[in-house]
């Protein structure tokens, strides 16, 4: 093997680190996207027998968003194995206890239940906020594009920006502004 070929081989099979910002993202939608990178499905060399998955660092998992009433409606089931050991936890309760768990389960569910799944999950690094240890952050070389638009709040704009934005209706005559 030539020296160039050897370097090519290293580069091809080296694990890449990806960053995913979960702010205002639906975990159920973004789970399959993150799982794709964990399994290595985005690579042209992918083969189920060759382990070529990447690392994914997910930040801001406490700021994930669910549509409509889903914080109340989505339920996570657990059974201890003993009689009467079944429990149903609502999504908001689970998110209250551990702000990374809803995202973790969404990625776990998105992958097929093969023997490889547990090893793929080890390459997923979840963080509730933006504080990531340096030894992890220095590996990151790519950012996964967020699936959902992050909506700015009205209070992110200055009062001047709000005033200068084109108005589509005017007040009627004699209207008392309050």
């Amino acid at each position, binding site marked *: 093997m030539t020296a160039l070929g050897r370097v090519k081989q290293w580069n091809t099979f080296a694990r890449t680190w990806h960053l995913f910002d979960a702010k205002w993202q639906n975990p159920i939608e973004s789970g399959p996207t993150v799982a794709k990178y964990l399994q290595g499905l985005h690579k042209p060399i992918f083969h189920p027998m060759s382990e070529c998955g990447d690392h994914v660092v997910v930040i801001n998992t406490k700021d994930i968003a669910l549509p409509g009433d889903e914080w109340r409606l989505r339920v996570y089931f657990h059974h201890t194995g003993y009689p009467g050991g079944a429990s149903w936890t609502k999504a908001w309760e689970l998110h209250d206890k551990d702000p990374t768990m809803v995202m973790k389960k969404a990625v776990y569910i998105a992958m097929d239940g093969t023997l490889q799944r547990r090893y793929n999950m080890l390459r997923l690094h979840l963080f509730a906020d933006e504080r990531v240890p340096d030894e992890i952050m220095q590996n990151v070389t790519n950012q996964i594009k967020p699936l959902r638009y992050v909506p700015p709040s009205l209070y992110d704009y200055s009062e001047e920006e709000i005033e200068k934005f084109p*108005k589509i209706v005017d*007040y009627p005559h004699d209207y008392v502004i309050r």
Partner: protein
Amino acid sequence: MFGRIISFSASNLKALLPASISRCTRQLHITAPVAVKQIIETRKDKQLIIEGVYMNSPREETLLRHNEDSDACAVCRLNVEIKHTDVLILSQFIRKDGCMLPRRITGLCRLQQRRIGNMVAMANKAGLMTSLLPRARERDPYKRRKEHLKFKVYYDESTIKPPKDPFAPRKLVPKDNWF
């Protein structure tokens, strides 16, 4: 009733046409630019003077130009898909305290009034726009909430139901025929 909403001059025949008068949801400002009122309270010893002063509309300069012949309401004639995250548009339809303006003031058609009203509620629930008051800017809308309400939500605008058509023909319900 119409005099309050529509101000027309004799020189403009269009305003005198019955078709445009019956369309009371649109405001035709033909004679003078829109003047809004400001209530000023002054106190002198034992006297309290309350006066209404006319002033130019604060939206005079930034108002979008449009075709005067158009029959459509302000949102329909924009022909833009508005979402509940467009807080800069939605904030034009609320009072300072965050209440939705009624249809006689916004001048929208029934459908758009319903849609905008629902989207204002959605933006409120998503914590993007609670009110226009300056003290609202300082506090985090999610901090005061409990249980499931303290986490971020988004909404689908296609779930907004259109209002019932009051002029739709009534459905004839056949009487139960027992025999």
